[in-house]
């Protein structure tokens, strides 16, 4: 939920990266963190297991700049992808302004993508949101691997409403900022509508 503070002239929005386990949600945030000037971002908080799997969420505040005299800050969150952390995923979607679905392009992860997307729709619904109305981007990650499903097949299976589809290799940063820009644009456009 967007928070506009007229006293400190700040706008805060919440973006959640969703997707199946090991699809690269945390890697997206890590790349953004590594390639952003320290003054434009806060700490990257990772609540992870000892084996670096996300346990609760990753969080990073990112200041994009000033629009009409208001500082525009995006709070980026990831959810834990593993199936059994569903209760946590639901909680993190509370107050969301925009969602990025990170799909794993590998053939063997197709079922996991479909299951996670279905789970996203259900969990959004349980928080009172509708995927068809919320700012949303589909990222096709891991395009550098050998066993990937063609983009058009992935889009046919996973695209829900004509949302922007971004090809990415989050580990090298390809497509990471394009994805963020695509979702941020939609969030700000929603704000324009009021």
């Amino acid at each position: 939920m967007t928070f506009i503070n007229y006293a400190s002239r700040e706008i805060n929005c919440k973006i959640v990266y969703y997707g199946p386990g090991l699809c690269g949600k945390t890697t997206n945030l890590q790349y953004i963190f590594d390639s952003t000037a320290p003054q434009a971002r806060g700490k990257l908080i990772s609540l992870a297991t000892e084996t670096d799997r996300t346990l609760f969420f990753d969080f990073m505040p990112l200041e994009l700049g000033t629009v009409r005299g208001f500082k525009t800050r995006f709070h980026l969150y990831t959810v834990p992808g593993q199936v059994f952390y569903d209760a946590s995923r639901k909680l993190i979607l509370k107050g969301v302004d925009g969602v990025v679905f990170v799909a794993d392009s590998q053939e063997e992860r197709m079922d996991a993508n479909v299951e996670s997307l279905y789970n996203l729709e259900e969990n959004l619904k349980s928080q009172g949101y509708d995927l068809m109305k919320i700012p949303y981007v589909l990222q096709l990650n891991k395009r550098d691997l050998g066993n990937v499903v063609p983009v058009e097949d992935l889009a046919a299976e996973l695209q829900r409403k004509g949302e922007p589809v971004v090809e990415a290799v989050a580990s090298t940063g390809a497509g990471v900022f394009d994805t963020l820009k695509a979702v941020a644009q939609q969030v700000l456009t929603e704000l324009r509508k009021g």
Partner: protein
Amino acid sequence: MADTPILLREQQYHQIKAVLARLRMDASAKVVFLVDKDGQEIASLGEVGNLDTTSLASLAAGNVAATGGMAQLIGEKEFPTLSHEGEKDSIHISVIGRLLLVVVFDERSSLGLVKLRSKQVSQQLASMFDEIASSDYDDLDSPFAGITDEDIDSLFS
């Protein structure tokens, strides 16, 4: 959509800060801050210094959300207060509707005092926030009303 944006007027912001300032003094606390349940920091006051209040706000909300989830699993609506005691500094969190009142304190204060003082201002903060949520904002000039695609693009240039 599930929630409407929170729009905080300058005067309301200063009123909230005044309540937090009094609480901080009465509870002999180091830092007091008010956070939305979704993790957005609304106002903070005190020895903020190098404290990363944005991260703390997000983690406090995550903490309350997680314990709230546990509460529901055992048949409780929620746990209205949470306390974490450290060697030097401690944290007390009160859930006030959709707000979290977070108080950081050290040996100059005590959990009992913080609990008491937090409870005393809870009602006041709740009604202030109700007013914020139900206010008519037609007179406020939305910073986004006239935003152009170029403005948005410029954020990423």
